[in-house]
Each structure stands twice: as structure tokens, then as C-alpha cells.
């Protein structure tokens, strides 16, 4: 059973389009995260939700909007895609969002904006 899953795995789209990435975890965790990994493999947190409540909202363009319909799901919607949005986006989860907790990562969604 996949603990943290993301769909789609690959996403190729044109500039200006709107797209969504979905994430689901079956670990029973309260907290979920979105990270962006750029072309140099640098990882940076974008958002975190705890039990559907937004906890962390880093300096991210407001074209990015996370949505958590329930604590097992955290989706990422991106409006008006730009070339610089090309990256790998990782979803992760942890039990309660404590800073000592292990985070469990999904396989990533590779987004390419043309």
C-alpha cells in the first residue's frame, strides 16, 4: 500500500494554463505539506496543513492555492502557469506537525511548463 500518493506523476502543459496536483495519505496523519524542488534539487516548503487548517504559508505567489478537503488529502492548484513553475512538487505528511517528527514523502509530480 502506498503511504503518500500523488497524481499525476508527470505534467506537461503550456504557459498560462491552470493545473492541479492531488495528494493523498493513508497513514492517518494530521499534517500534510507541499514542497518544491527546483532544477538544482533545492527543496523548499510551500505550505502545510494540520487537520484542514493552513499552518505554514511561505512566500509563494498567490497563483498557488492549496486546498485540503479532509485531513487525508491536500491538493495544489496553480493558476496561470509560468516557465519558472517547472519543478518537482512533493507532498509529505507527518503525525501532528511537530518539528521533531519524521515526514513521509510522496513520489513527486514532475511539472514542465512550455
Amino acid at each position: 500500500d502506498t503511504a503518500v500518493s500523488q497524481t499525476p506523476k508527470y505534467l506537461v502543459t503550456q504557459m498560462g494554463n491552470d493545473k492541479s496536483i492531488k495528494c493523498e495519505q493513508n497513514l492517518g496523519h494530521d499534517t500534510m505539506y507541499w514542497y518544491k524542488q527546483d532544477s538544482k534539487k533545492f527543496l523548499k516548503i510551500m505550505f502545510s496543513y494540520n487537520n484542514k487548517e493552513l499552518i505554514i504559508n511561505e512566500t509563494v505567489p498567490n497563483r498557488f492555492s492549496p486546498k485540503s478537503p479532509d485531513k487525508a488529502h491536500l491538493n495544489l492548484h496553480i493558476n496561470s502557469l509560468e516557465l519558472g513553475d517547472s519543478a518537482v512538487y512533493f507532498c509529505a505528511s507527518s503525525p501532528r506537525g511537530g518539528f521533531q517528527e519524521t515526514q513521509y514523502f510522496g513520489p513527486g509530480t514532475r511539472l514542465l511548463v512550455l
Partner: protein
Amino acid sequence: AQSVTQLDSQVPVFEEAPVELRCNYSSSVSVYLFWYVQYPNQGLQLLLKYLSGSTLVKGINGFEAEFNKSQTSFHLRKPSVHISDTAEYFCAVGRHGGKLIFGQGTELSVKP
């Protein structure tokens, strides 16, 4: 502000040789330190973490790391690497709300 610096962007090593991947952190408060590994085209998984107690931490796949408060370091070591250890390794510090601040990553390349 806390930050993490991984001193080597690439580390090539021959199979069965020892390896050390270096990580330094800056923090004026208690730190919780992690090493994650990312195999090609996969997500990250935890190798080991330091929360408190013994400064020598053992993780999966034969890796270990030593927390050194005076040198603000958390270097990762393995006495004998395998081809399957080829991956990207990330050092990170945990912050409030579960936020992980990652280093730049070190690409370990194990050659036969």
C-alpha cells in the same frame, strides 16, 4: 534564522570505500536534525534523525551520523558503500509547525 549548509555538492566514491557527507547548521536554539535520502526519480525517505541524547545516531542501510554541538555539525558516515547507495542526500533542520529547512543536497555517486 536557522540554515543548513552541505559542504559538498558531489561526492564520488568507489564501492566498499568509506564515505562522509558533511552538514553544518546554524541555530541559537535547540535543534532537531535529519538526514533524508532521495533515490533517482523517487521521493525522500528518512535515513536518521537526532532529537536529543546520544550524539551518535544510527540509521537505516548502515548509515550513522554524529551531532557535534561545538562545531555545529551533523556529518553522515558509512564505513563501506554499495552501488545502491547512489542517491541525493539532504540534511535538514526541523522548525516549528513541522517545517523542514533543507541543505542544498549532496549527490553521492558510487562507482564499481
